């Protein structure tokens, strides 16, 4: 018996020693290599090249079909176009119809995707800002450029949020515990943050474009948005001042309507470069009709009769930027600023998605000047745009126009110049207080509370601090 126990103890000892030997390597056994497709945050901001990739990620993401900025049916351009009097939806999708019928519910999926993609982009911008602030190894030049871009993007997103949803949370960091209980800020506060970010962006961004073409924001891009923001805030002087900076810059000039949206357009201040190898712009892919739009998803939108009827005859913009499809019985008009529907792989991209262009700056300055009673100067700016359209100059038609007449002319001009781009019409109607007057007669379901989209339902239930829903929902 004793022998047995001794033997037993011996064997147990051996086993325990073996186990401990194995266990010495326990800790290191659990160190697994990170997957090749992932990169640790600190490494991203350890070199100029990878830091630039983080910015590239933002632009690629902005072109994701679900993003507010993609140019697809889910983008601001289309959805806000449907809400205003630009586009008509023939979609079988009730959530798209709801935008057209101004009967968006808080559950609406596309409304939610607008909100979520805007905040996702803000997060990415904030992550870049933080990464750069911590990093010691990114060169000063690159750091300033990238940080300027990220600040600009953050301002850009907040601008769309405040215009679509009214009071919104302002997100300036990446801490989720803070961001998940954040409350809505009054429009004024949102705007002052936008202005602050844009001023910083102007400081940081270089005057020239960081890479070839105009597909990464430069200082002029921040200026262009700042001019727009001042205009929306009725700060006419500043709006004039900022837009003048660009209008005085000889790198920018108006192009003929037929080539204004091409890759090499001199009118461009900032364009997004398509990333899908099969596509030119998503605007082209989604808006060019090749069949009846009735139930023709995804190509189920057409320009409204009101918009088509508002062009003056001979307007080269109508000739170049509006096209039609007919099935023999009916004819539908569609935006044709982007002319390429699909791109065979390997062929070069012909058009970039235009985000900021010079014509808007002319119209900003025109409106700013007229509002400061600088009528003739305003008229010159307006006529710059009209002359490109090859229609009669306003100074010829009505040289002694009153301030009111001029403002009305600018209003009409903005409509035909900027249609189907980035929700300009929807935002203009709202800021001029004309949404009800204009839309009530043409939209059956209109009520004045429709000027703000609802805060998505899930968002309110996930963050009770968001408080009340927008009125009317």
């Amino acid at each position, binding site marked *: 018996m004793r022998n*047995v126990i001794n033997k*037993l103890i011996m064997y*147990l000892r051996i*086993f325990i020693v*073996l*186990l401990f030997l*194995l*266990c010495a390597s326990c800790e290191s056994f*659990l160190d*697994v290599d*990170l*997957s090749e*497709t*992932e*990169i*640790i*945050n600190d490494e*991203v901001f350890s070199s100029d090249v990878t830091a*630039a*990739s983080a910015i*590239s*990620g933002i*632009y*690629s*993401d902005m*072109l994701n079909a679900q993003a507010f900025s993609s140019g697809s049916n889910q983008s601001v351009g289309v959805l806000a176009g449907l809400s205003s009097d630009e586009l008509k939806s023939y979609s079988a999708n*009730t959530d798209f*119809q709801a935008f057209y019928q101004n*009967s968006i*519910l808080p559950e609406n999926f596309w409304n939610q995707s607008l*909100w979520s993609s805007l*905040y*996702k982009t803000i997060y*990415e911008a904030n992550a870049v800002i933080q990464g750069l602030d911590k990093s010691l190894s990114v060169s000063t030049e690159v750091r300033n450029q990238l940080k300027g871009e990220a600040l600009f993007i953050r301002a850009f997103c907040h601008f769309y949020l405040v215009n679509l949803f009214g009071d919104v949370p302002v997100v300036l960091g*990446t801490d*989720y515990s803070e961001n*998940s*209980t*954040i409350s809505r800020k009054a429009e004024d506060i949102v705007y002052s943050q936008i202005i602050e970010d844009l001023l910083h962006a102007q400081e940081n961004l270089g005057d020239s474009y960081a890479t*070839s*073409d105009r597909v*990464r924001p430069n200082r002029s891009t921040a200026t262009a948005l700042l001019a727009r923001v001042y205009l929306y805030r009725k700060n006419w002087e500043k709006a004039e001042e900022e837009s003048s900076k660009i209008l005085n810059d000889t790198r920018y000039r108006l192009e003929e309507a037929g080539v204004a949206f091409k890759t090499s357009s001199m009118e461009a201040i900032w364009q997004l*470069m398509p*990333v899908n*190898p*099969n596509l030119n712009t998503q605007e082209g892919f989604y808006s060019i009709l*090749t*069949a009846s739009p*009735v*139930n023709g998803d995804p190509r189920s939108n057409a320009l409204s009769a009101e918009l088509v009827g508002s062009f003056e005859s001979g307007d080269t913009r109508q000739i170049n930027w509006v096209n039609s499809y007919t099935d023999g019985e009916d004819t539908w008009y569609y935006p044709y600023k982007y002319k390429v529907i699909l791109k065979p*792989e390997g062929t070069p991209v012909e058009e970039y998605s235009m985000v900021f262009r010079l014509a808007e700056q002319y119209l900003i300055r025109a409106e700013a000047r007229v509002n400061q009673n600088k009528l003739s100067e305003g008229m010159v700016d307006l006529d710059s745009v009209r002359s490109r359209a090859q229609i009669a100059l306003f100074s010829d038609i009505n040289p002694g126009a009153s301030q009111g007449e001029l403002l009305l002319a600018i209003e009409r001009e903005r409509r035909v110049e900027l249609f189907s781009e980035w929700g300009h019409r929807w935002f203009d109607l709202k800021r001029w207080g004309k949404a009800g007057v204009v839309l009530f007669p043409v939209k059956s379901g209109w009520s004045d509370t429709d000027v703000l989209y609802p805060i*998505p339902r899930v*968002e*309110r*239930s*996930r*963050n009770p*601090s*968001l408080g009340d*829903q927008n009125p009317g929902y």
Partner: protein
Amino acid sequence: MPLPRECPQLRFVMKVSLVYICLMIATLQLLASNGSGQNLDQLKVTTELDHESLSNLFQQIQRQTSLTFAFIPNEISPYNNITLAKGTRSVKATLELAFYGTGLGYEQVNSSVIISVGATSASASVEASASVIQGTVKDNEGAAMPGVNIVVKGTTSGTTTDGDGRFVIDARASDILVFSFIGYKPQEVEVGARSSIDIVLESDIEALKEVVVNAGYYQTTDKMKTGSIVRVDAKDIGTQPVTSLLMALQGRMAGVDVTPQNGVPGSAVKIQIRGLNSLRMGGDDGNGNIPLYIVDGVPIDSRPLTPVSSTLVGEGFDPLSTINPSNIESIEVLKDADATAIYGSRGANGVVLITTKRAAKVEKTNLEFGVYKGVGRVYRRMELLDTKHYLEMRREAFANDGSLPGSIFPDNDLLQWDTTRYTDWQKKLIGGTANILDAQLAISGGGATTSFRISGGLHKEGLVFPGDFGYHKLNGGVSLNHLSSNQKFKGTLSINYGIDNNKLFDDTEVMNSALTLAPNAPELYTPTGELNWENSTWINPLSGFRKTYNVVNNNLIANSNLSYDVIKGLTFKVNLGYTNLDATESARYPISANDPAFSAYSTGSTADGGNKRQSWIVEPQIMFHRNFNNGELSIVGGSTWQSSTYQSQSYIGEGYTSDVLLGNIKAANSVTFVRNEKSEYRYTALFGRIGYNLDGKYFINFTGRRDGSSRFGPNNRFANFGALGVAWVFSNENFIQDNLPFLNFSKIRASYGTTGNDQIGDYKFYNTYLLGNNKYQNIPSLYPKSLYNPNFAWEVTKKFELALEFSVIDNRISAEIDWYRNTSSNQLIQYTLPFTTGFQSVLSNLNAKVQNAGWEIAVRGDNIVSDRFKWNTSINFSLPQNKLVEFPNIEKSPYAALYSIGEPLSIVKLYKLLGVNKETGLYEFQDENGDGSMDDQDKLQYVNYGKVWYAGITNSFRYKSFELNFLIQLAKQNVQNYSYPWPGMQANQPAEVMDRWQTDNNIGRFQRFNQDFSSASTYYQFINSTGIVGNGSFIRLKTASFSYQIPEVFCAKLKLQSARLYIQGQNIFTITKYKGLDPESGSALPPLRMLTTGIQVKI
């Protein structure tokens, strides 16, 4: 040349020996107390003979003692085919046993043993102390029983019978021998004056209960277990025509809730053991409620395989689909802390142990063959509107809205399509018959040391959809057992390999089409046999069937177990495993699936990809087992080293201009990589279990495990888990036996302990960027992968269980009643976040507590037991109760709208539907806070969509050679009713919607028909209201089988060992008030009603 029979030398030796024997008797006490090694009945040797000669035996003894043997070779040479079961016995007993029936005898002289014919065995002279008892053990049918345990009561000395049922043991006249064998009633026999005892062991009715239960790292029995383990064996699994073996468990186990997600073969099954522990309940968050699957000791990643493109399979593919149900020996499910704690961090949701069939120890070469064939159909259709009522609904909707068809939507059903047509789309699209064919073959055989089993199977199953779709699977298995001749080394190897091929179509719309397509929608085909597109006014539902989808799974599970008995009771063991799952998928979207009117603009596309999962495991273990006077100690200890790698890739090819080239990726206009994931998971652990039982009455087990997982950050990698289990078999107490004699067996057991859960993705604690698919200006793009939380740690589930087991009336009725309470805390969840954070969730530990408590009752009764007729019944019943116990600040969290303290996790918060407003014709809801608008604050109706209780009743009848088995499954539950598409829109509806508001004095249950947006809000509120809650309770005849065992006489004529014919049905009928297709799978393709017939033959 033979030696002379009486050799003088020998005679001399014998004389001396006689003197010696006299001396020995005199000094016997002394010798015994000295522990002298020379006394033949004290000197123990371990011997084994397998058809070997006696001289081999002598050599074995000589090696272990200082004895030498003298014999005349001629005398012992005829005995060259002696078999002696392995055992440790006295030399005396060994020799008696070996010489049994030979006429040989022996004498001892000093350290020599002289063998001769007719010699007087020394035994006669030592009668006073202990005598050698020999005998045989047979069963009640007269067959010899090998391996029967024989113990001298009150001691540890004992032996086992050999292959012919023979035994030899040393015992005194006053000793009592206890004969025991699993499945037989133990027998006690007083030795008395006898030297030969022949025993007949009677089989125990309780035998079935007394099967060995696999508990993972160790084995136990129902009687001895201190934990909660349930078992289903081959008999109940094998013949069910199921593709997923987990489906075979449905309704058979208390506390184990198995729900099919749909009726498509190969899709993952939902299995939940004792309720939802984790708030991670599937979808993007991952599922934290899946049990651990172990196949033959090898853990299998239990997460469903996500398909590269969306298909009919919903949650994903079943990772166990390639395992052949008929190759399963048993499935054990471990539920409580005592049973699961040895799996530590992975045991929180229970453990499913799957054991495949092994080679039997010693048996003649056997060939088993089985085949079945059958059909399956959707057992129930919804009652939908016919054309007349449908058009009435549509026209009324327009009248209500004051508009005309075509003003918003094209309204083809009213304007373009033939309004006199009627098609039952359910019949057309899901009304087909699925054919099932299954064939299995297994060969097994071997000898005492090595045995094998080779099996193969084929399973084919069609689908109920029109077209050439279906599932087939081929699998093979090899199992080898080896036992060294000294019985110290044991090795097993099992390899299971399966290939399944699932041909489906990639269209999620088909079920939707079957239920909502207008009944007057056009013909499917034109008169010339082409797909009919009716002038581009509809999407032909058959076009979806042209989008083919194919997945091929190759699944290898290999396991080897090596063990070595170092000394008696001490075994070293190592468990080795390897798995390799490779799923290759391809989806094809041809141009011909599109309306040819648009073919100029449509191109074909393809999606290809796959999932790869590989893992290995090494588990060195040590086991110790020893009987003490009245007690039994067993210890298991070991460690685990596991590594798993996962890879998933997929890419899409777009812009094919011809269907002929579809799939040839070079012909694609562009190729995009959509998924490129790689991850590695490592896991290591130390575990141990110490069990002690005293007198077979008191049991105590302690289990502990220290786990490390690579899924946690460096500070939180390791955690400890443990459990204590105790049991008291009080029926073995004298006072119970005296006072409650009707209790044949009774036991109380309890356990308490902790288990964990690391079912989260890999690398979650890193703050990382992912490489995106697209480049911007040729610069690769990087995206933040997720929100970053480096500090999350293990979640812990504390489990407590109390159970009573008893059997009465000659063990004919036995029951087990369990009460458990599991509390999960430190919940590791994908904490839902508002979009303002940039993401929708972050992985973090939540200070919430979820409690699962419940009752489980299992009763088994042998209602009638006679030679000709047998009837037994098993009932299992589960009453689970799930509750969110704690959740600090829930009202400010994103979960405020989902959960409520004190309520189950499976609740939904709904508006209270008041009915239809008389004036407006719209639904009305209770505005709980009176603020005039309906939002989350008004959702105060909490409805539990979980199962309130569920049960299974199995009955088995046997009359002569006929056997009838059936299983009835019952459940009480609320479910979400079929969510009616907006009544009035262009979509078919359940017939009941005709009970609607028409005028202010004809209100009805449904709001007024409507096709514009004027009723949108109330419609959406309705599907979030109590109006959508349905009674999903059901009673289902889940399986029934009727079989006939062909009598032996016929079998013998056909040279068969046995043969059985059977007919089997699955989902035979269901009684339910549920309004949709099936109360378990909702509006997905329901599990089919199947009818199969088959035969099983053994040669």
